[in-house]
């Protein structure tokens, strides 16, 4: 009953602003673009002369302000650009006013992490959000020279790395699968190349990335830990340009330019690893069939049809292939393959200066597979996820105090958990696990109200998830987890529906110009989850949809924060505390074996709760030549599942109690800059054996509590140096950039894993630390044209 009352009040609060009586005011709206490239500028702030009215541009660079009738001066500010002012005159009609921003070359030399202005951040009720500019990623030291926006995100407070080198990330104790990763509106299911050591997001193609750590705006749903919303470059609408670069691991090319000047443009980027090219030179170590390669391609076209309509077409494709011939096992060639393919179509339509619409139609396809040419039993195996959906998002700039967002989202899932097919002349049987079809509609409404010192944002999301046929649905005993029934459902027949409200609310209160307090609450529901075999995340991990056996995970997160700027905004301190409780957390039972091909995979799951709490602090510094931040996180993340660890709470394998991230960049001159980063986190929770017993000649370990032990603490120092040069060839300006990086500068042997084994020859148990990287120098060169 309390919840219903709360929901009613929330809905009433959401609807009321729409009926506020409008004064005699005018709407000023338009786009903020880069003057040189025509690229939309995200997160720029537009405000009037006395700063009483202000708004940020959305992900398409659009803004809308409501001003009193008459004359006023509007200022547009964005880090990396020179502030721009324009006079607006209105006698009553709506005014369209675009800002074409010029880059601040001096400011750009200094790496800026966050694109919003600092004062704007102070007043935003949004908590736990960071916008990362792709420029930053290019500045920071990178493993093997591969600039990576995910690596920057991993340096933020509250974000932790599951294991050495991994591009997966855990936010506030959540699983890697609990991060919603969107690229131009389409979800990405596996964001890691090369078993996760490099992310799939080519730094050349990424414009910006927005990370939300739990306090999601109501338009986002489906995941409980974070949202990473990545926008790719639109493409220069004025001139052709591009870059080509080569590093130790990959070669890349990036092209952009107008299709119709100032109307339509394109962007194309491609990257491929080339380690495999050198395998023939090392015949003694690698057979000629050894495969180890990845590629990714981003392509995007946008067309400004008229002042009120613009469309975007984005496509992304990535593929990882690695395989080896294992003749001692009777295998000619065994190949792993996993690939992402996404396409999205987006249509911006401005119904009126105050009503902005974005329609997104997307498709995302993830496939992982094995192709095994075993002598007598060749087979192929694959697992796929198809997600298609439509999202309609409307932003209504009601007045100078209220901005409302509302929309609907309809997604369809087609999950193929496992299919094994024999190849020719194979005695392997065809084994196909039942598919899952699901329908996931949702709707949301959210309003942001700006009062004098107080900014409120409150919203409500409603989502439902229905699994349907055609499939065989298995049912399991709730005590033994043995399959007790199987029912065949015809195509389209409803199997199970879950639904729920997801209220979200946050506020910011300004104590002064430099100090603000923030608080937030967010509920989110996750209907598609992944049960991880390995904490690192791998192609062997299995995805599960909600079903009669698996309930959706429900997360409630509470957070409070304190922000203060010092030294004329040169220093910015933020401290946030959070508590998160998750219901219906899943984990695999003890010793689940190989999950992916198991028809009874739902019977391997166990259900319970998880909770996490912690404090995140961050001190950012921005001076003329020196920029960076220091972040410290203290957190604890626990699981409690009756059938695991004797029902006692146990530590999440992704939780590092203490984590410190420090990043600094220094510009020696316009052409020479350097950066340094240092990472520390306390040891990853793990389980070591305490005793052993003999069973048919084998020493079998006996463990105490799950994750009761810790691996050694992790720390690493990375360095980089960037040198730029300009040349003029045939009146064309070309510039080049050398980047030298040193990953793990002091060569610490950080444990990737620790294995324990019993040596039969010496009759002694031994522990072995496996580490992947010592000091790794790298160099890359990028040519801009």
């Amino acid at each position, binding site marked *: 009953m309390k919840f219903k009352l709360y929901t009613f009040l929330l809905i009433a609060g959401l609807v009321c602003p729409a009926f506020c009586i409008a004064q005699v005011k005018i709407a000023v709206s338009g786009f903020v673009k880069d003057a040189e490239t025509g690229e939309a500028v995200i997160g720029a702030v537009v405000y009037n002369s006395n700063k009483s009215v202000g708004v940020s541009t959305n992900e398409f660079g659009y803004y809308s302000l409501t001003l009193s009738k008459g004359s006023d001066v509007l200022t547009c500010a964005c880090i990396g650009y020179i502030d721009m002012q324009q006079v607006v005159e209105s006698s009553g009609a709506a005014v369209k006013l675009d800002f074409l921003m010029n880059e601040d070359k001096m400011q750009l030399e200094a790496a800026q992490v966050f694109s919003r202005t600092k004062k704007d951040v102070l007043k935003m009720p949004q908590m736990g959000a960071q916008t990362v500019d792709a420029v930053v990623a290019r500045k920071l030291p990178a493993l093997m020279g591969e600039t990576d926006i995910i690596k920057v995100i991993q340096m933020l407070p509250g974000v932790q790395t599951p294991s050495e080198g991994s591009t997966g990330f855990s936010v506030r104790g959540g699983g890697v699968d609990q991060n919603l990763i969107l690229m131009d509106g389409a979800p990405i299911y596996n964001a890691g190349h090369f*078993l996760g050591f490099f992310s799939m997001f080519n730094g050349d193609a990424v414009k910006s990335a927005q990370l939300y750590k739990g306090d999601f705006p109501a338009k986002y749903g489906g995941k409980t830990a974070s949202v990473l919303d990545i926008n790719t470059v639109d493409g220069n609408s004025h001139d052709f340009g591009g870059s080509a670069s080569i590093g130790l691991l990959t070669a890349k090319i990036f092209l952009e330019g107008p299709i119709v000047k100032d109307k339509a443009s394109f962007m194309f980027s491609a990257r491929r690893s080339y380690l495999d090219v050198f395998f023939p030179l090392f015949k*003694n170590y*690698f057979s000629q069939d050894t495969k*180890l390669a990845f590629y990714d391609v981003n392509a995007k076209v946008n067309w400004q049809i008229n002042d009120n309509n613009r469309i975007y077409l984005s496509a992304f494709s990535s593929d990882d292939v690695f395989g*080896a*011939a*294992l003749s*001692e*096992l*009777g295998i000619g060639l*065994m190949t792993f393959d996993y690939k992402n393919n996404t396409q999205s179509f987006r249509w911006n339509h401005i119904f009126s200066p105050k009503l902005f619409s974005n329609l997104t139609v997307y498709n995302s396809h993830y496939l992982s597979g*094995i192709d095994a040419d075993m002598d*007598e*039993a060749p087979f192929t195996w694959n697992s796929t996820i198809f997600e298609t959906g439509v999202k309609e998002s409307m932003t209504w700039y009601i007045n100078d105090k209220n901005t409302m967002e509302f929309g609907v989202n309809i997604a369809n899932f087609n999950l193929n958990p496992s299919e094994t097919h024999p190849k020719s002349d194979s005695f*392997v*049987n065809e*084994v196909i696990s039942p598919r899952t079809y699901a329908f996931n509609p949702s709707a949301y409404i959210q309003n942001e109200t700006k009062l004098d010192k107080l900014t409120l944002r409150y919203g409500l999301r409603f989502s439902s998830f229905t699994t349907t046929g055609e499939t065989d649905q298995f049912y399991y005993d709730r005590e033994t987890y043995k399959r007790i029934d199987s029912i065949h459902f015809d195509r389209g027949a409803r199997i199970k529906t879950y639904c729920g409200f997801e209220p979200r609310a946050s506020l910011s209160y300004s104590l002064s110009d430099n100090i603000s307090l923030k608080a937030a609450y967010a509920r989110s529901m996750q209907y598609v989850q992944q049960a991880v*075999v*390995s904490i*690192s995340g791998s192609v*062997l991990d299995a995805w599960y949809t909600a079903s009669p056996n698996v309930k959706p995970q429900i997360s409630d997160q509470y957070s409070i924060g304190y922000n203060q700027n010092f030294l004329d905004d040169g220093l910015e301190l933020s401290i946030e505390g959070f508590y998160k409780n998750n219901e219906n957390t899943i984990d695999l039972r*003890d*010793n689940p*074996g*190989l999950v992916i*091909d198991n028809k009874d995979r739902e019977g391997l799951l166990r259900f319970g709760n998880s909770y996490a709490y912690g404090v995140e602090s961050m001190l950012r510094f921005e001076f003329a030549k020196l920029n960076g931040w220091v972040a410290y996180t203290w957190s604890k993340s626990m699981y409690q599942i009756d059938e695991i660890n004797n029902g006692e709470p146990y530590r999440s394998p992704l939780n590092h109690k203490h984590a410190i991230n420090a990043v600094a960049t220094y510009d020696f001159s316009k052409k020479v800059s350097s950066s340094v980063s240092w990472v520390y986190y306390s040891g990853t929770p*793990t*389980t*070591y*054996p*305490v*005793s*052993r*017993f*003999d*069973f*048919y*000649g*084998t020493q079998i*370990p*006996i*463990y105490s509590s*799950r994750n009761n*032990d810790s691996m*050694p603490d992790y720390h690493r120092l990375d360095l980089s140096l960037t040198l730029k040069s300009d040349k003029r060839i045939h009146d064309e300006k070309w510039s080049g950039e050398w980047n030298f990086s040193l990953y793990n500068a002091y060569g610490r042997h950080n444990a990737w*894993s*620790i*294995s*324990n*084994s019993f040596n*039969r*020859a*010496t*009759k*002694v*148990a031994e*522990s*072995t630390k*496996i*580490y992947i990287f010592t000091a790794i120098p790298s160099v890359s060169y990028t040519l801009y044209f």
Partner: protein
Amino acid sequence: MKKIIRNIFCATAVILFAASCSEPIDLEIERSRTKYLSVEAILNDMPDTYQVIKLKESVQYFTGRRPVECPPVSGATVEVSDGSRTIEFTETPFTPAGEYYSPEGFYAEAGKTYKLKIERKVGGQMKTYTSSSTMIEPGFIVDAIDYKSSSSLMDSTVVLGIWGQDLPQRANLLVLTSVNGYVRPIDKSFGWDDKYYNGQYIEGFPISILEQTWERYYEGENYAKPLAEGDSIGVYVYTLNDDFYDFYMSFYYNMQASAIPLIATQPANVVTNIVGENVMGFFTTAPVQDATCIVDDPKRTEFKYASKQYD
């Protein structure tokens, strides 16, 4: 299926070990005060062998550089009943301590349920441990085994192949191998559920690898010896019930996957079907078939049995 899993492990290992390094590490681990009774008891349907049940005690996992083996448990009372009679398993003066033998001629018969009862004194108190298992029908008929040598990027190895008919009922299979009568430990065995091969005639399916580098890597240089002409290779093919297969796979994953984080599962104790305080191990019944072949040329690179078939 385990074949596929092993392949995945190995292929992943090839790539990851190529990129990674390892070094010994000393761990600070709390000492366990609990001593577990370990029971190894697989009763089979071979009438011409003695059935044996072994009892031992657990030890600390890490013992520094001091070699420590699990001590045998002597003086226990071990009984197996099949509903109509109770068989007493006893230690003999001619066999190692902690090994309890059945009378001659006792073996497990399909369809019968066998109950195990063990009693022993711990700290002056009598402790009882019980379990039961129902004997199932065989799921596989072995025709032959053969070997071939194979070289890879890592080392030269000998692959053991099997020929036989998988029977229509779903079954879990476990193959233990022996060289010159020495049965290799159970972690060197090969187990699979037959969902991918159910009802098929299996031809030259690789079930075991001898002399592999990784075996030496983990077990020490002296453990694996190269095969020589005249050596005898044997297999015992067990048909396992689901419970024992679950036990087998749980320790298999615990031991084989722990070194590779990308596929390593969370370490956890293996299951046991023995009821009692502080007890590990398993009691099961399983039909078994055996087959042998004699090494004529250790360097031969093709299965001879396969070529015979098509002559």
